[in-house]
């Protein structure tokens, strides 16, 4: 059953009103952007929707300052079109519907190990906390250590501390040239060893993925002469692993979109997103039998599509990683929390921070189970 709409505020005052009303009426609300990740979390929890679509639009953009300020409900596609027209990009390579949703989920793509994640590019936020109070934090310049880094705290908070209305992000030039070097036929362990060598080399790769059955891919971006020189460098590095094929033109961005979205994995199985120390990637999947998998971040991010009976979370814990349940049946999502359980000390800190920003528990307190408020 879809949760009912609670409010669709058009401005900050209406958002303050909506959250205050929810608090006074003891309601719980889920903040909704485009709903890309609406299926993450307990499906049976009590909540109504606050639609954040009213906070859409570009607020300020000066390309040479490398800063973009934008409404949280702005479609990601619109942001990326504007940046592309100015030769720039969101370097963390996001996947999602709205920029606010990307921030709330902290969803970074293949460039994460080399250019930083969502959190590394978020400079400032404005919004309304669960207390019903409008506040701002951070700034609109690329270098700032004034006060606590609340924008980074909001990243990956799934809208459970505050409803962010606008955010400032650092933007970067898009490489003028792009090429992908692909080695075929490697098993997981040697493939990940190759990616580790490439990531530790001076070739400055900007993507490192292993797609079982397809190949082991390393991306290079930048100015033409530099990319050309680094392609040769990478070919040399791959020489002992197998024949290296060059993918240029549209083929390269298409490949990395597929990696970003894990779209090649079976759609009818539960999908897990495992983050772990990069060198443990192959160890992680060794115990999972023939589960479908995709390695990104040179092994630090592993997407796994496996039957419900496979305990991916235990396998992640065993290598010091975490497994997030991204897609599953309602029954499984009600049974298994979407987020990896945290150590008691961290969980206690988290609930005290949550209580500071949202003392009445208005903002989706049970999304990840009753234990993880």
């Amino acid at each position, binding site marked *: 059953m879809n949760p009912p709409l609670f409010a669709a505020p058009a401005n900050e005052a209406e958002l303050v009103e909506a959250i205050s009303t929810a608090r006074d009426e003891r309601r719980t609300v889920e903040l909704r952007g485009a709903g890309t990740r609406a299926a993450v979390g307990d499906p049976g929890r009590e909540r109504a929707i606050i639609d954040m679509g009213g906070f859409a639009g570009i607020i300020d953009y000066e390309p040479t300052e490398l800063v973009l300020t934008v409404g949280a409900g702005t479609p990601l596609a619109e942001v990326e079109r504007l940046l592309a027209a100015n030769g720039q990009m969101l370097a963390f390579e996001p996947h999602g519907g709205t920029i606010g949703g990307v921030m709330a989920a902290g969803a970074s793509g293949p460039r994460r190990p080399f250019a930083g994640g969502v959190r590394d590019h978020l400079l400032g936020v404005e919004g309304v906390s669960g207390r019903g109070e409008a506040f701002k*934090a951070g700034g609109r310049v690329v270098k700032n250590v004034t006060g*606590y880094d609340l924008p980074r705290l909001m990243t990956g908070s799934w809208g459970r501390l505050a409803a962010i209305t606008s955010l400032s992000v650092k933007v970067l030039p898009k490489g*003028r040239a792009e090429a992908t070097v692909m080695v075929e036929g490697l098993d997981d362990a040697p493939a990940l060893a190759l990616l580790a060598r490439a990531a530790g080399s001076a070739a400055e790769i900007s993507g490192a993925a292993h797609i079982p059955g397809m190949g082991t891919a390393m991306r290079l971006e930048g100015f033409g*002469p530099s990319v050309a020189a*680094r392609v040769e460098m990478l070919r040399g590095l791959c020489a002992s692993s197998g024949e290296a094929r060059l993918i240029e033109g549209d083929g390269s961005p298409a490949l990395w979109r597929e990696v970003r979205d894990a779209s090649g994995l079976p759609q009818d199985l539960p999908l897990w997103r495992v983050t772990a120390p990069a060198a443990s990637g192959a160890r992680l999947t060794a115990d999972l039998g023939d589960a479908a998998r995709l390695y990104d971040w040179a092994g630090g991010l592993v997407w796994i599509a496996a039957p419900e009976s496979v305990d991916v979370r235990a396998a992640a814990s065993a290598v010091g990683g975490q497994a997030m349940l991204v897609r599953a049946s309602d029954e499984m999502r009600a049974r298994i929390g979407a987020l990896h359980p945290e150590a008691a*000390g961290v969980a206690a800190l988290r609930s005290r921070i949550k209580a500071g920003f949202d003392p009445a528990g208005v903002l989706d307190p049970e999304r990840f189970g009753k234990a993880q408020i």
Partner: protein
Amino acid sequence: MTVSMPRPDAATIEKRGVIAATLRSIVPGEGVIDAEDGRRVFESDALTAYAQSPLLVVLPRTAAEVSAVLRYCHGRGIKVVPRGAGTSLSGGALPLADAVLLGLSRMSRILEIDYDNRVVVAQPGVTNLAITRAVEGRGFYYAPDPSSQIACTVGGNVAENSGGVHCLKYGLTTNNVLGVELVLVDGEVTRLGGKALESSDHDILSVVIGSEGLLGVVTEVTVRILPRPLAARALLLGFGSVEDAARCVGTVIGAGVIPAGMEMMDRPAIQAIEAFAAAGYPLDAQALLIVEVDGVEAECAHLAAEIEAMARACGATSISTSKDEAERLAFWAGRKAAFPAMGRLAPDYFCMDGTIPRAALPRVLTRIGALGDLHGLKVANVFHAGDGNLHPLILYDGNNEGELERAEAFGADILRLCVEVGGVLTGEHGVGVEKRDLMGAMFSAVDLAHQQRVKCAFDPMLLMNPGKVFPTLHRCAELGRVHVHAGRLAFPELPRF
């Protein structure tokens, strides 16, 4: 001291002897300093205008000792001020008369170098540069490079979220730390993050980084190391006006180039540096840029040629590109001598640290010059031009009656100006005590209350590093009851420290 600090608790000071004896049972030997001359060594950090001898100094060697010290202090309600190497430029490690100064300098071992995961695990007292030294043999380095990197510690870097000249391209500390071991104020030892690039607790890790020692004591840090670029080249570009130099910076970035470093100096800085260091800087220039590019040789050659062409188009009056490593380092030697060079012009200086949108630079430098005239003080500007981080150096003589106060007032005017043009109070040095009372220029009471809610989640008794960052620290119980209506707090402000 011209900055006001929380009123010391006389009862705590009276118990110095008992507290010292108890701490000696936790940290035996030379680890507790209570003699007056020994304590005075720690009375200031690098913001030497302010000094205060601590109640006691304790120098633990293990996380277990840190935990036991904190548990004891927490139980007795004794305040604690953490300190790394004491290189803070904002007074982050300024002691309090009634607080234990907790120095991490003896926890100075690198615990693990993990090339497979490209991380180093270090104790907090390891110096920034020591991490690079430990891994450079294998072609790696630790990217954040604050100018004090020979002395400053990685624990202090975490507390201050330190930057450096290369942070436009490689990020600040927060972009390069993956995990910490953190001892909470009550002595509980907790871990945030680890060796993975992301984990669910990185949100909490992110507020610990840059929290200026107010949330806990870091006893272990896991940092990323990066492969050292194969080549680097620096360009020294002279301009006839600040406007031309600023335009060149915008042109370079607009062309899609993110240099590894891009530094600007104004005429007073160029003159002072050249007189001190004879770096070969053009004395006829009104503004000087050092632009560094790094990467593979093809990248450096391509970008150096592009930047030379852009500089010419922006009216550069002199252009030289380093031909070898010795020349590249010579270009930087001048910039790195900027602070000591100022020491020849005046006995004392304040180094300010605001960040502005770069487009405002010519206007801001003109206003800073005018403010200097108003306060009757000289100023020279060095500037991380790529990311808009200004470092105006205010020259004064603390021995002249009233000159320190004038310098403080001038500095405050500069920082308010930074905020007025859309910038921020501090780009990399931290708030500390120096900018504490200016926080209201940037944040409303509600903004600050939200920041303080994080503080209260970690340290509800407000025992960690009091008197720093927050102009007014409300008791946490009161903060919980604060009701805000239309952006205004409905309870009276507590007095400032």
